[in-house]
């Protein structure tokens, strides 16, 4: 019996027609006649394709151990970015710093159940407002992890304006994954203002220049936020690359206090055009032998290559949790302070029941309209925190972007196969 139900495959017309199977995220080239038969829903062609279907694995009830924890070491920030989801770092409360006892207890909780590898992240606010604690936690986590035979890694998300030579040494020697929040040059960075309403990009670059030129073990990525009044992608990447960033990603504003900055339905098609422009420029570069740098593209291409097929958009509440200054765990750094996303505390430990309930309720197959979308296992259903705050929007944008990446995959897999097979940025 041929199945013609929507959502289990997706046709990609073009010079090299192909078909994407949702379950297992499988990509096939097909000849033109076969493509037409599929487009016409001809039973014979459909059943031939259906023979290749695999059912997505049922994740079951088992909870994976938490492998990454982010510590909100400073719920305060020296900048006042207009689009900040975290209320300038305060998450709706008053500015606070994390205490050492809370941080160490959180690390203990992480290591007590980690198997083999664990990641400690520092986030805020601006984490380097609490510099001393970062250094102390790194030393403590390394010693505790060694005793438990766990390999521990570190990451930090920072605006970079406050880092000192000591901090740079820490980032290099302990091989930090450093995510730098910066939107581009002065032209694009207009929302990232300090308390005197001055642009922060020059300070970020000045403080990080030594790390960018000599990263040591650190891996540095720029993360640019795109607000609706400037949807440009290409120029940001160019400007940041010229300052020494070798990995650059962008992310649109979907939530936050100022509606004027959030992307609305009419903005998504425009952003898609910008993303495709950036992707095509990136592909032209790498096909001429250059190294990859536009991480949105490479993340998607590598997921397509592996056939990533996931029931959730990210590791939140599953393998990743965040801890606030008072020691409460939340499903991720976006939901700090939200009582509904609380997952235990450093005193009580990780709350397995709440984590399980959170994940079960959010499985992409249970979401409407996700359950009928061909892209659901590549997308995972969108950021939980954003969906909770402002619903799902821009789904056509996501699908358009994935379609573009699926087409690009074919070329990249032929011309630069080594870039998607390896684990480089």
């Amino acid at each position, binding site marked *: 019996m041929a199945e013609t139900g929507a959502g289990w495959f997706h046709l990609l017309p073009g010079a090299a027609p192909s078909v994407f199977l949702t379950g297992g995220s499988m990509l*096939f080239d097909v000849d033109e006649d076969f493509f037409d038969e599929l487009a016409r829903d001809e039973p014979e062609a459909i059943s031939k394709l259906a023979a290749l279907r695999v059912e997505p694995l049922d994740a079951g009830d088992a909870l994976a151990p938490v492998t990454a924890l982010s510590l909100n070491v400073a719920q305060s920030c020296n900048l006042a970015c207009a689009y900040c989801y975290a209320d300038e770092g305060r998450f709706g409360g008053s500015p606070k710093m994390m205490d050492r006892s809370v941080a160490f207890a959180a690390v203990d909780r992480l290591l007590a159940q980690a198997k083999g590898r664990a990641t400690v992240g520092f986030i805020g606010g601006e984490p380097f407002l609490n510099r001393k604690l970062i250094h102390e936690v790194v030393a403590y986590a390394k010693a505790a992890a060694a005793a438990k035979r766990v390999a521990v890694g570190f990451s930090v998300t920072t605006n970079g304006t406050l880092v000192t030579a000591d901090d740079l040494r820490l980032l290099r020697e302990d091989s930090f994954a450093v995510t730098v929040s910066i939107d581009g040059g002065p032209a694009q960075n207009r929302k990232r203002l300090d308390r005197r309403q001055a642009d922060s990009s020059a300070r970020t670059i000045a403080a990080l220049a030594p790390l960018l030129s000599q990263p040591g073990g650190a891996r540095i990525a720029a993360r640019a936020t795109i607000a609706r009044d400037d949807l440009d992608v290409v120029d940001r990447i160019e400007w940041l690359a010229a300052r020494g960033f070798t990995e650059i990603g962008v992310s649109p504003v979907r939530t936050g206090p100022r509606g004027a900055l959030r992307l609305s339905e009419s903005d998504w098609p425009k952003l898609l055009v910008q993303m495709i422009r950036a992707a095509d420029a990136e592909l032209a570069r790498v096909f*001429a*032998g250059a190294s990859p740098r536009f991480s949105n593209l490479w993340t998607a291409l590598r997921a397509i290559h592996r056939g990533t097929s996931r029931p959730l958009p990210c590791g939140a509440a599953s393998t990743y949790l965040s801890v606030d200054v008072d020691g409460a765990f939340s499903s991720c750094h976006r939901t700090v302070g939200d009582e509904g996303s609380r997952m235990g505390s450093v005193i009580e430990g990780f709350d397995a029941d709440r984590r399980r309930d959170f994940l079960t309720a959010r499985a992409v197959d249970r979401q409407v309209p996700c359950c009928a979308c061909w892209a659901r296992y590549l997308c995972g259903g969108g950021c939980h925190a954003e969906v909770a705050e402002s619903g799902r929007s821009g789904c056509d944008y996501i699908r358009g972007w994935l379609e573009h990446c699926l087409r690009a995959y074919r070329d990249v897999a032929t011309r630069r196969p080594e870039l998607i097979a390896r684990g480089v940025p």
Partner: protein
Amino acid sequence: MTDRIFPRNLTAKAAIKIVGNPVTTRLESGVGNCFPGLEFDHRNLDRRFFPGLVFNFGVIPPILADVDPVDPGLSAASPEDAAQLSQAVNDAMADLRLGGWTLSSIAQGGRTVDLTNAPNMGDPAQFWRLVRDLRPEKVTIVLTKTPPDPPVAPTPPAPPAPAPVTKTLTHYRRRYIDSDTGVIPDVFRPGELTQSLCSPWMHDFRDCACDYWASNHPDIVLGESSFPLGDNLADLDPQAATRPLDWLRADRKSRVAASPLARANEALQLRHYQINTEWRSLAFVLEGHEIGAVYAPGVEQMAAPFASAEELADELTSLCGLEHVVMLEYLYAYYSLRQPAEVTPAHADDLTFVRHELLAVAVSEMRHLRWANQLLWTMAKNGMIAPRPPALTPGLEVPTAGGVRPRALRPLEPDVLADFVAVERPSGTLDGEYARVVATLSRDYPDTMLQLARQIVAEGVEHFARFSEIARLLGSWSVASGAPRPWLRPLKLATKQQASAALDAYQAVLAHLQRAYQFGDIEDAAEIVQGRMAMMRLDEEAEKLAKAGLGTPFFLRRPEEDTRPFIGLPTA
């Protein structure tokens, strides 16, 4: 299926069957196969994880089973401190030969595991897994001398136990696979990797065959090349040389072809009780052929080495020309083939296979051209020869069964195919040309060079098998005599002008390769990427021409011009 749907990403590839050997036949697929009864026992690799020492992981804690002063791992010149570390291992060997020693601790990357006091280590396999997890980087081990047994009647009071005698040694964990050639290093002696598997006289040995389980014995082999059927086997039984035989057949004289059905073969195999007693009648297999009473050394051992490195380099330069010219001949033949959709459905699968195999051989020749050039640049880098330009000029003649013939671009007519089979026949012409190279490289040249040359020869044997299979398949199509071969497009040689787009692309390939090879094995991504793109352009253009009935005139220059080396052509 495959003519209409082509898998692109990894999950798609896993879901579909494609032409060729299944992945389970590849070495890397054996990673999980660590227990007796499989094709080889991976645990035996780790017995020699530390250069110069051999461990036994069957007991707790692991014991030092042997020392190996001739371990080639101890003569490695890189990394920088390898020689010094090897010296320390050599110095320790005199002590390590005496008495019993156990492996008591392992340290790598700042982590130390004390094997005498590790929790959850009740199973000897845990120790082996620990060693298996080491990275091929620097590792420090501590060996502890086991005390002699206490006297039977202890005389009180016992003296205080002396401090344990230990040795601490550091070296690089052995790389089990050579990164250039994929070859397992010489340090493993014949039989060492299979020594813990089931033995030929056991029932298991009979039943572990490829249709049931990965196996440590051959399933399908070629017969002896001189089987006593008659004076001239080839005349009496022309297919004998390529007919697959079941290695376990009970009637050792049988020349009946093995069946593709395991069940059919099984009925004719040695029975369980027979294998217990008659295992000695099973033949040794070398180079795919069963070997009779006495193994006659082949070409490699008998070939005379070259007197100097420059002479060797001259031969390699000429072999590059040979690889290059047959590659072009094979490509021309490839483009002469119709697409599977253009023939009857009954023949479409055959043609898919033939196209795949012929292209695979052409690609393999491209790889050989690269490897032969690599041998040249390796010699130049090591100062063995004066630097010379990359060898990218196609040869003028091809050695085949009846001597040499001039190079020729021909469609895949049966006589052309027969000629290809002859060129690639083992110990025929092409691999014979490498015999003297191998013989020379066996003497005081870096081991990786020898392995590269051997790999070229080994793949040559594969080419022969592939062409033979193509000949068998196409031979089974019924064609009225005098009628055109249904697998061929009517093709005539294009003029240079007609083929200018294809030839531009081919020139660009050569120019990029020339620049990349000039500097040896430096990672020159830009040149290789652009060369690859030019190659794809060439494929597109050549196929376009072939569809229009035109063959790409791959020889860019007249024969008299190709006596001079190819020198950089401007790229488009």
